[in-house]
């Protein structure tokens, strides 16, 4: 798995590539945690982390990976930030549907729409 971190204004975008399984799922968690930490130490109070997880190149995700998305959602929501998912492949989407988590995640098919969510 590879993760590229981009910033667009106040929005942080993680482009994730590969399979979010096994130890890589935990690696993704630490990358997300780093973003949360960096954000809270670098920014003024009152600003919130807006995170886009670009899943376009994710081939597969297991329950550990899904748990990490949920943990990211709950952690960031606590600080009044938001997480949105971008470009879910069919298998990732059906995994989220199966786990009845579609209602908690906002999902978009284009980056412009995902960015629009925060505006």
């Amino acid at each position: 798995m590879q993760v590229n971190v981009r910033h667009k204004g106040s929005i942080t975008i993680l482009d994730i590539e590969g399979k979010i399984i096994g130890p890589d799922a935990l690696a993704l968690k630490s990358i997300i945690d780093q973003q949360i930490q960096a954000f809270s130490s670098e920014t003024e109070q009152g600003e919130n982390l807006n995170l886009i997880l670009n899943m376009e190149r994710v081939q597969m995700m297991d329950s550990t990976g899904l748990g990490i998305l949920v943990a990211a959602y709950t952690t960031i929501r606590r600080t009044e930030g938001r997480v949105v998912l971008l470009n879910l492949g069919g298998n990732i989407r059906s995994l989220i549907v199966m786990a009845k988590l579609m209602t908690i995640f906002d999902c978009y098919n284009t980056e412009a729409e995902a960015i629009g969510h925060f505006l």
Partner: protein
Amino acid sequence: MGERTEQVITLSLPSSMQHVYLLRAVVTEILKETDFNEDTQERINLATIEAGTNAIQHGDREDPDKPTIFQLILTENELIINTADEKAESRHKESETEQVITLSLPSSMRHVYLLDVVVTEILNNLDFAEEIQEQINLAAIEAGTNAIKHGNKEDPSKKAIMQFLLDEDKLTIVIEDEGEGFTRKEVADPLDPENLLKSSGRGLFLMEACMDAVTYEANGTIIKMVKYKT
């Protein structure tokens, strides 16, 4: 020789040349964990294929009822590959299963990738639709993770053993760990609204959702999962 860091991975294949690709995939994946340079990796891979071909063609005379066993021992500074062709009667002969592939892994989470490689290769040669392949792959990863993490508590001296039983009408995956076991009924339902936002506890649910049948035996230390081809 660092005995404590020794990792023994065992792959048992039906003696049929069609399975050599599986050996190659496993060796390639294991070599990624080593410091051997690319050129050396390629040579080790080639030597392994030759040894495997030899065992399958000459040792077992391509009799798929006789397994060829590959033992890959990874220490801090060397990789040892042992090949054994089984002269004895296959222990699976009593069942009607056509072909049995067995992978035995030390319980370290990094071997989940090896399991993924094996499952992917096996599925590439079975006629399941792509969407079904993805479901089976996910269920196998969940079961392997479960055995390594929850069953064997990531103790590398304990084995997670995965058997793939290839039949004309179905694929059966049997996963065994050396842990204490568990009771399925006592595992919380991840779809229960109060568990929905928990960061773990979805593994068994996903296995059951992805496969046609999942049964728990020997106090949950053996999990048997079936997917039918129709």
